[in-house]
């Protein structure tokens, strides 16, 4: 999207998109920004929910050149910790990976020295969002786990994120990582509990819950 008068955003922020029907009925949803601040256009990644009020319009009807009403950028809590002096651990379920796509792109654009790990739980290979942006590289470790079907030949983790996967594929508590979790409400709650049980201080864990009715992996 090209947004006139866009003030710029920070990685992790979202926008509220509002649709108004001819009879005045409005529906509004929040979408995380997928693009880094360094890119002038703003990218959203929208997961189509069959019974949704907003996402079917955005994914099926919206055409290049159309205008939409949105508010943003929004949020000062769930944002990239710009000057972190400890590693950053990102944990995503399903489309909860979108703010992390922006963070990893920003990390690359700025040549950030902060080590980052992403643990990303997704149903199937076809559900992986922003595959190119999620490639592991120097200083960035990315681990996927497939909760429904893994691709042929996959020898990485399978199944939902549990305590064993957290121990094996996330930054350990002694490194005091800044932890960010984004996914469905049950996903966020379960993993926050597990991380606290593993010894991470709850103050080091920032979370964002989204309202999608998908399984959130």
């Amino acid at each position, binding site marked *: 999207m090209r947004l006139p008068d866009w*003030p710029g955003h*920070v990685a992790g922020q*979202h*926008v*509220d998109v509002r649709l108004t029907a001819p009879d005045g009925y409005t529906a*509004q949803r*929040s979408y995380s920004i997928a693009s880094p601040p360094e890119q002038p256009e703003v990218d959203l990644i929208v997961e189509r929910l069959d*019974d949704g009020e907003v996402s079917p319009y955005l994914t099926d009807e919206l055409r290049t050149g159309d205008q939409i009403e949105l*508010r*943003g950028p*929004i*949020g*000062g*809590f*769930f944002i990239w910790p710009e000057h972190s002096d400890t590693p950053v651990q990102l944990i995503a379920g399903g489309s909860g990976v979108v703010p992390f796509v922006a963070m990893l792109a920003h990390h690359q654009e700025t040549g950030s020295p902060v080590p980052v790990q992403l643990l990303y739980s997704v149903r199937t290979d076809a559900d992986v969002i922003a595959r190119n942006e999620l490639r592991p590289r120097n200083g960035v470790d990315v681990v996927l786990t497939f909760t429904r079907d893994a691709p042929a030949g996959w020898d990485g983790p399978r199944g939902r994120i549990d305590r064993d996967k957290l121990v094996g594929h996330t930054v350990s508590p002694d490194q005091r990582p800044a932890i960010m979790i984004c996914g*469905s*409400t049950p996903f*966020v709650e379960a993993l926050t509990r597990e991380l606290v049980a593993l010894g991470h201080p709850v103050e080091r864990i*920032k*979370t*964002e*819950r*989204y*309202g999608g*009715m998908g*399984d959130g992996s």
Partner: protein
Amino acid sequence: MNASDDTDARYLDGNAMGGPLAELFAPDLTAAMIICANCGNEKPLAAHPVYPDAPAMVVRCPGCTSVVMRYVSDQRGVRFEMTGVRLLTIAEGSDQPA
């Protein structure tokens, strides 16, 4: 989840209040610290459960579940109630516009 789930299962968190509250306040409030008027629990707004499906957006205390804020934007305008907040603190330097 499915359509038979009750409303209690469909809560979000205070990150979702960022946009609505930007209609009223210049600074971002999702990172603001809130002390619950009922139990004294202190957490960022973003860490509060938010029930978006009620007639109002209802923000509850993560400690005692008391209502700390209610927000409605409809044909009558914007209404915002925060008697459940004892103290709201915006940290020095966090003046990032919402």
